[in-house]
């Protein structure tokens, strides 16, 4: 009987199936692999440490699915949604299905499309598996969270919202940028910067937040997805090392992409910072702590490893370090101001949460943010809960409303602008401005929600017109948590007095 092949040989024989095309020249079959300036001498140097073949892929993914769906069924059958700490927590899941799940779909499309354009089969196979993984993630997220859709508002049309709603243009523009880049930039943007450097800053906050707040189904989905993420991280790191080892001319191009995409990813993650500091009744850690562990420490080890290629930590990281005491509070303030136009609830933190924030942010919370929250709470108590009556100016690049402050002066709104072909463009920061100025022809095409609303392209002139166009249910999906149908139902299910002003943490 023939001896079974070892993993290396099996993998090589089942994946290295490429050939020099003869019906059409290679440059026509692979038209995008040169224009970015990345030089590849030898695709045979591509290594895939996980060495997955399709049969192994189907076997292991199948096992993961059986476990995952069994737990989802148990969660639904046992009304698991009643075991969460408080219904405010559910808004973190709304942010997830609205902000993250459509990005998984974008990643699925991106890896399928971009991956096809590498001449090396190892890269194509790995991208194809990642494309399947990302579609799996969309499906399992929708399936997991569909249970919450039966009982809470804000879940019913996330993909439509991704295309139209103002705060979701932040994650949308991030991925549109990557999907309209070339294949090598895509790998650095998503495979490396997002899936390796920044992945823990997306997943750990949501998953530990779920664990601390009694949401077993999300924890289970999270762990099931994370095992796929390990392969994604490997692909991203391998892609980076391959580019850097193939030719020294690639180093400055790759460094530029790492700089850009670290910044773009960091900006999107500011939404996660606000979520973890404000939306979780029981908080595992602060944004500041997460940044210190998952970027400053873990990222430090990674960049030490890459230093031998001439790669360095992006300069922009200094700004991120200065801002770690500020951005979550600023973003929560922005969401609070504009929650009448959003499909999530917001609310003012209670005393226990404010004390937690004081402890986690000793240099900044009491000085800059507690006073404004106490002011808004006073307005609420008078029946004048503040809702902004206008649309914010947003950054042309990251598309976040310009509520961020100067890195060295938290009392000054940071504002930058540049002129290009007779038009003025606005930015929240130097890095966003630099990203624009490096590729203005790309970013002038940005679909900016406030501008589009003012141009009359979003359903009509009034807020109600726009909300209808968004398919956001007024008085249910939007507005403060206090007084919402979510709150009323939660109190009914838990047998709590409707008149009680419950603390935001715990239900006892």
């Amino acid at each position, binding site marked *: 009987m023939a001896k079974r092949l070892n993993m290396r040989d099996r993998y090589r024989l089942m994946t290295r199936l490429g050939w020099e095309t003869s019906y059409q020249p290679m440059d026509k079959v692979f038209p995008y692999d040169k224009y970015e300036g990345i030089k590849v001498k030898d695709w045979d140097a591509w290594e895939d440490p996980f060495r997955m073949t399709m049969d*192994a892929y189907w076997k292991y993914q199948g096992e993961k699915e059986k476990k995952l769906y069994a737990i989802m069924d148990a969660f639904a059958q046992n009304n698991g949604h009643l075991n969460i700490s408080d219904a405010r927590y559910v808004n973190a899941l709304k942010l997830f299905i609205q902000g993250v799940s459509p990005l998984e779909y974008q990643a699925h499309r991106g890896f399928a499309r971009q991956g096809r354009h590498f001449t090396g089969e190892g890269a194509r196979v790995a991208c194809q598996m990642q494309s399947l993984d990302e579609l799996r993630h969309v499906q399992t997220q929708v399936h997991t969270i569909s249970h919450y859709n039966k009982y809470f508002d804000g879940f019913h049309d996330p993909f439509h919202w991704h295309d139209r709603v103002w705060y979701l243009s932040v994650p949308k523009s991030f991925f549109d940028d990557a999907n309209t880049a070339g294949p090598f930039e895509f790998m650095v943007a998503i495979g490396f910067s997002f899936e390796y450097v920044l992945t823990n800053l997306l*997943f750990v906050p949501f998953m530990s937040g779920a664990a601390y707040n009694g949401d077993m189904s999300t924890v289970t989905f999270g762990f099931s997805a994370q095992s796929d993420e390990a392969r994604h991280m490997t692909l991203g790191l391998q892609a980076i090392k391959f580019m850097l080892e193939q030719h020294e001319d690639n180093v400055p191009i790759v460094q530029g992409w790492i700089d850009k995409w670290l910044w773009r990813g960091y900006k999107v993650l500011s939404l996660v910072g606000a979520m973890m500091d404000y939306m979780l009744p029981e908080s595992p850690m602060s944004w500041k702590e997460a940044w210190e562990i998952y970027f400053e420490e873990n990222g430090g080890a990674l960049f030490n490893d890459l230093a031998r290629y001439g790669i360095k930590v992006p300069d922009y990281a200094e700004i991120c370090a200065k801002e770690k005491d500020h951005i979550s509070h600023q973003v929560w303030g922005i969401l609070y101001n504009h929650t009448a136009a959003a499909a999530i609830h917001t609310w003012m933190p209670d005393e226990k949460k404010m004390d937690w924030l004081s402890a986690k942010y000793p240099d900044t919370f009491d000085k800059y943010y507690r006073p404004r929250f106490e002011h808004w709470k006073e307005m609420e108590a008078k029946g004048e809960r503040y809702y902004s009556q206008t649309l914010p100016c947003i950054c042309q690049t990251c598309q976040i409303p310009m509520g961020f402050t100067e890195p060295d002066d938290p009392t000054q709104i940071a504002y930058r602008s540049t002129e290009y072909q007779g038009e003025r463009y606005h930015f929240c920061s130097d890095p966003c401005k630099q990203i624009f100025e490096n590729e203005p022809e790309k970013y002038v095409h940005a679909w900016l929600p406030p501008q589009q609303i003012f141009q009359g392209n979003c359903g009509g002139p009034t807020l109600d017109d726009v909300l209808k166009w968004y398919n956001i249910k007024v008085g249910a999906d939007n507005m403060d948590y206090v007084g919402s149908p979510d709150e009323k139902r939660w109190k009914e299910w838990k047998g709590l007095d409707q008149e009680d002003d419950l603390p935001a943490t715990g239900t006892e």
Partner: protein
Amino acid sequence: MSTVFLALQDVDEARPIVEAVLRDNPEAKVEHQPAMIRLTADNKLVVNRETVSEIMGADWDPQEIQLVLISFGGNIEEDDDHFTIYWN
């Protein structure tokens, strides 16, 4: 000196892997967090097929680690006999 880490789900299937790591990597440390086991070591951490199989009492394929893997920090090297995480 850079720290490598391996985070596994805190489930039955992971326990022989954790035991094998602690046996084969004397300097490795283990930390328990909610639903997660985090193993750390300086520069390198090796999971040996033979050790895990012996502890489990069954043949274990290093690719099976994917069923309980949450995250890791470091470069990966894997074949039929081991799964290694390392920094250069």
